């Protein structure tokens, strides 16, 4: 066993040769430099530092040109391809450099009925948007959810690009993410849209994300709802017509739209609602013919979704609550942020789970705090990502209330707040 492991380790450096490494270059918002010039400078930079360990981000440069034009150069998503942190020789791997500008303006809204301007039927972002910057990195999953999704959509767009006959091989461009609330389904959709816009910037000039408020598609007038859906998709169609744009349609909580049909059979839903579902389904069939569109949907309750819809989704990805390992990483990123903002002071380096494993979880001065964090993570199992991300805040608000604390005190507070969280949850279920 040990021998094979040793063999594997020797093999490993070779496996990372020739892998695709993505380099994202965030151009300053006021920089007008040409993409080619930036690419040249970034290549020079990568030549100087040609061995990296996993993801890496440069924010300061020796090069004056890069300093004035580029916010950051980051090597990203290496963990999606490589299981372990290992040295990557950039000179041997194929590099794809993506240079992007962030759009700073917020979402614009689309209204459907002209007489009531207040109801916003859809929010509409031009990607890559500053709002979603860093979202992808903040989402932590155990399984290869992120790489699956990325690969899926990349294949989809490749097939469309090469004009694969969709009568012979059919694919639908519909992604359904389901799972318990607070696991980051909607965030993942937004982050995915942002990521793909950056990845495919050589092909599409910009991305558009349209988030449909599904309840706004139900009209107050009987028989008008179906028309509202059609109107909505007409607007989307206009966006798709621009061949330089990559369009993402996000339908959140899709069960609210499609649950209606089964309820209709039970006689509890008016016939108008069923028209909405039918209209949505036919419209999705309509727009999926276009190569530059991806439909992202999320749902909390999969059983309630119409089968006709589930069938249309190519990828039905379950997003579950995070495991201990993922919780550990989430906490680690939170603590890192607090140290950056000097709320936790002095700075203390925590070990990752992998590093703990390497020292065999032996408790010593270096590993003590990390082991405590591991223990807290184990006890936090069952909490959703949304709850986990707010625990550091609650810990500070409830037990600390001072502008800076040591790591040790903070972890104790975090531990208390985790207990409290479970206690609150028990009380809630008891009272129901």
């Amino acid at each position, binding site marked *: 066993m040990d021998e094979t492991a040793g063999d594997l380790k020797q093999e490993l450096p070779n496996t990372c040769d020739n892998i695709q490494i993505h380099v994202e270059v965030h151009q300053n*918002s*006021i*920089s*007008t430099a*040409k*993409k080619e010039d930036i690419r040249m400078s970034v290549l020079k930079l990568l030549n100087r530092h040609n061995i990296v360990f996993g993801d890496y981000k440069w924010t300061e440069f020796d090069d004056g040109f890069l300093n004035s034009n580029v916010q950051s150069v980051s090597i990203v998503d290496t963990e999606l391809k490589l299981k372990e942190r290992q040295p990557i020789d950039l000179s041997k791997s194929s590099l794809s450099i993506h240079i992007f*500008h962030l759009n*700073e*303006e917020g979402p*614009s809204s*689309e*209204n459907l009925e*002209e007489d009531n*301007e207040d109801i916003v039927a859809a929010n*509409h972002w*031009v990607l890559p948007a500053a709002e979603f910057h860093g979202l992808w990195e903040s989402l932590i999953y155990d399984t290869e959810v992120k790489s699956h999704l990325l690969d899926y959509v990349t294949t989809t767009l490749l097939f469309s690009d090469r004009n694969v006959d969709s009568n012979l091989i059919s694919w639908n461009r519909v992604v359904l993410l389901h799972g318990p609330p607070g696991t980051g389904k909607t965030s993942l959709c937004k982050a995915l849209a942002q990521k793909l816009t950056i990845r495919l*910037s050589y092909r599409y*000039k*910009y991305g*558009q994300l349209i988030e449909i408020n599904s309840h706004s598609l139900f009209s107050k007038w009987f028989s008008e709802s179906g028309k509202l859906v059609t109107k909505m998709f007409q607007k989307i169609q*206009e*966006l798709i*017509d*621009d061949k*330089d*744009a990559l369009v993402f349609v996000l339908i959140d909580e899709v069960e609210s739209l499609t649950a209606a049909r089964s309820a209709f059979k039970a006689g509890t839903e008016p016939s108008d609602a069923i028209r909405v579902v039918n209209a949505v389904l036919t419209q999705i069939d309509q727009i999926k013919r276009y190569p530059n569109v991806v439909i992202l949907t999320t749902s909390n309750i999969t059983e309630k979704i119409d089968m006709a819809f589930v069938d249309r989704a190519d990828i039905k990805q379950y997003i579950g609550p995070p495991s201990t390992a993922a919780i550990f990483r989430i906490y680690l990123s939170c603590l890192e942020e607090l140290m950056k903002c000097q709320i936790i002071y002095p700075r203390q380096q925590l070990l990752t789970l992998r590093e703990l494993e390497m020292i065999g979880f032996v408790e010593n001065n270096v590993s003590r705090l990390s082991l405590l964090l591991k223990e807290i993570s184990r006890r936090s199992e069952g909490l959703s990502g949304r709850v986990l991300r707010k625990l550091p805040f609650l810990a500070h608000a409830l037990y600390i209330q001072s502008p800076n604390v040591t790591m040790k005190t903070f972890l104790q507070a975090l531990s208390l707040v985790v207990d409290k969280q479970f206690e609150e949850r028990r009380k809630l279920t008891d009272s129901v």
Partner: protein
Amino acid sequence: MAAPGGAEAEGVGASPAAPPLPAEPPAAPGLTRGPHRGGMAAPPLGPAVSVVFPGAVSRESCCRFACELLKHVLYQRHQLPLPYEQLAYFCRRPSQVGDMIKKPPSVDLASKKCQQVLTDLEGMLQHLEVIFSLTLVPRVLILLGGSAVSPKELYELNLEGVCVGSTEKSLKTTSCVRKLFHSLFIADVFSELKALPAMGTVVMLQGHRDCGVEWFRPKLNYKVPTRGRKLTVNLSCDGDISISASAPSSTTSVWEDYVWFQAPVTLKGFHE
């Protein structure tokens, strides 16, 4: 959506069913049609108004055209209840002792919106002056509603054909502005349109890559949208132009280093 009349005129500008929108205003006496018109970009979809100035135009004048067109569009398309100058006069009056009566909250909100848009617009006009002093501006876009890539209405001011001259050797700004608006009124481009709800207005313009402007944000990937109602105003120069004035060039290579800049504020329209 665009008004029915506007939608019809779009795309099929030559259709006899379209409302009588002359592609160009009738030639004023003493005005000669110059050879430069042929060198301009192909006429885009939607109605277009062309104005030919009998001589070189200064940069300051070009800036005034953009500013005046912006103010005019905002008022004509119902984003401001009064023309800018009047609105500024009424809203920026220092409150007198008699005005201290308590107003209902709705009035307060409206006046807050009004103050906001006035402040934003004033800032915009100042920054337009700055960018026009730093670089040649071949094109200006005024985008109403939606987003910069999919606006509901689009107004384009095309200055590619303008010969920019020094202030002394150019035509007077006031007479040029008068001529521009005369052409706009004759073309009667606004009367057919339906009233619009209050929405956001984005201003974009092309400038030289290295002009060093800081307030405007470069949008290197930007492409002029093809959707929505569009009105193009083409400006060009003709007549006795001295050599010192920079002549317009129809070759695209000259404009290669000109990139789109977007104003970082959105002017939020309001109704009273």
